[in-house]
């Protein structure tokens, strides 16, 4: 069966795919539906939702259109989530495979560094990093990746170590394959899928971390972020709780979508593996 169809067969994966598709549409449509600066003042401040149909979700403290901010916030959340996860996966995969292949002292040093990064609470690290370098989108991405690469690194290393001992690698050596070819053609393609399977968890964590940083005022002030919206709304939590609740719900849905789709992918590939 076609993997995509098998993927969409489970209701969870389907729900995840629908959520992510909606989110992607939001992110892509944001500049078309809400051209210009989403932070532009669009109406009276603190307009509750569903009062004015030109501002369906109301306005925030400065009279900015919450719906426009929500759409543009989707861009930031997705961009940061994907970029940070990609960075974490790449860094982790490189370090992990390097450690796995090199072994010995290199492995030992890289693993102690990995330990060190895992020992420091990653959010604390991100907090320190952003406050040191100053908040901007790129810095936030790096800060999140700094705390997220250790998981992929460990998985990549473990996979490399285990695959190295497998018969088919011995078989490749027996036919005289060059060690580099063994590494890149025999081992890596088999070691990476379990690493990539982590991506949904990492993307979700990255989105949540970005939101938490923005919530603490360490987001990029030139971008709308959902975490930043929640933080803004927090000062008027009593009078206008919707300002925190709406972006919060968007966050929950997004992360849920990522998880659901991720589980679907894992399940789909797991089925394929069990069939083989």
């Amino acid at each position, binding site marked *: 069966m076609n993997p995509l169809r098998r993927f969409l067969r489970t209701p969870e994966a389907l729900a995840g795919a629908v959520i992510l598709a909606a989110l992607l549409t939001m992110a892509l449509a944001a500049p078309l539906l809400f051209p210009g600066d989403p932070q532009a003042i669009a109406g009276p401040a603190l307009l509750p939702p569903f009062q004015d149909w030109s501002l369906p979700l109301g306005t925030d403290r400065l009279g900015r259109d919450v719906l426009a901010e929500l759409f543009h916030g989707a861009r930031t959340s997705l961009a940061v989530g994907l970029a940070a996860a990609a960075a974490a996966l790449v860094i982790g995969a490189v370090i992990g495979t390097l450690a796995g292949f090199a072994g010995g002292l290199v492995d030992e040093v890289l693993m102690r560094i990995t330990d060190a990064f895992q020992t420091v609470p990653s959010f604390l690290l991100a907090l320190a990093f952003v406050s040191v370098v100053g908040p901007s989108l790129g810095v936030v991405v790096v800060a999140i990746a700094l*705390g997220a690469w250790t998981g992929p690194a460990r998985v990549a290393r473990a996979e490399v170590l285990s695959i190295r001992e497998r018969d088919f690698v011995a078989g490749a050596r027996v036919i005289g394959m060059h060690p580099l070819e063994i590494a890149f053609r025999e081992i890596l393609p088999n070691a990476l899928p379990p690493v990539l399977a982590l991506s949904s968890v990492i993307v979700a964590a990255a989105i*949540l971390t970005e939101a938490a940083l923005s919530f603490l005022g360490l987001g990029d002030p030139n971008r709308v972020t959902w975490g930043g919206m929640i933080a803004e709304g927090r000062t008027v939590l009593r009078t206008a709780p919707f300002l925190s609740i709406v972006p919060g719900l968007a966050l929950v849905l997004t*992360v*849920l979508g990522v998880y659901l789709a991720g589980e679907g992918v894992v399940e789909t590939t797991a089925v394929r593996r069990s069939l083989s």
Partner: protein
Amino acid sequence: MTRALALIRRRLVGSVFVLLIVVIGTFLLLEAAPGDAVDAYIVSTGGDAGMIELLRHSWGLDQSELTRLANYLWALLHLDLGQSVTFSRPIRDVILERLPTTLILMGSATALSFGLGSALGIYAGARPGSFRDRFLSIGSLALYAVPGFWLGLVLIVIFAVGLRWLPIGGIESIASARTGLDRAADIASHLVLPVSALGFIYLALYLRMMRAGMAEAWRQDFVLAARARGLSRRRIVLAHVARNALLPLVTMLGLQSAQMLGGSVVIESVFAVPGLGRLAQEAVAARDTPLLLGIILVSAVLVIFINLLVDIAYALLDPRVGASEAGA
């Protein structure tokens, strides 16, 4: 027990290097920051250039980075974390003052998430594919997707602001003269919301892990063998399936300790809990570099310590651990 002792020894040796990397790495990172403690201090007090020079000198900030790193490491050997700029007190005292609060928060949140999470996980995993399994699975996933700080705000809106059942923040009623059980109850009522906000997310994690672990265990031959031996379902679920599925959860307990410490930064901020997390945020805001260094270092030590406990617990739970290296 020799297995556990060997494990502890090996761990401790490795930890020294890890801590060294943590200290040096954090030190260099914080050195790269624009503005230093003097700048931060001046915000609150004011002062002219001459005074800034004076402060830089008296706080040793005019020395080279290497000298300061060396001094710092030397002081660390004497368990001296230095002097906090914002609190004008030894950092060790400041941290020790805040640490118990965070430990209580983390401990309660861990107990909640691990206890309830694994119990619900067993309940769900006892009948894979059943309605309750699917319901708990999806429900926990949704819960896992909730940002902790937002959950905190929602809980405040509902239970503290709306229903007024619970206090809105802090760790105990202000300057109350309560003692003994009264005081404990007061602290507990303050902890309900932050512990829930912090714990419920990890609860979802443990639930999911337990459930997945049980699904995995159900496929194992020894479960089929237990069925073949005619053991009761209850016995199979609890003594074999759940027992084996528990092991990865214990590992996760260690891995999550760092995450939970990070999560408590935000949760403590939302609920105004005067713990280590809030201290970290205060240190960041005040650019109190030595304090932040100290907090990160103490967190790292804490995480290493928790992981050590978890490793010992794991070794006790899984007889296979270290079997091949016994006596090594």
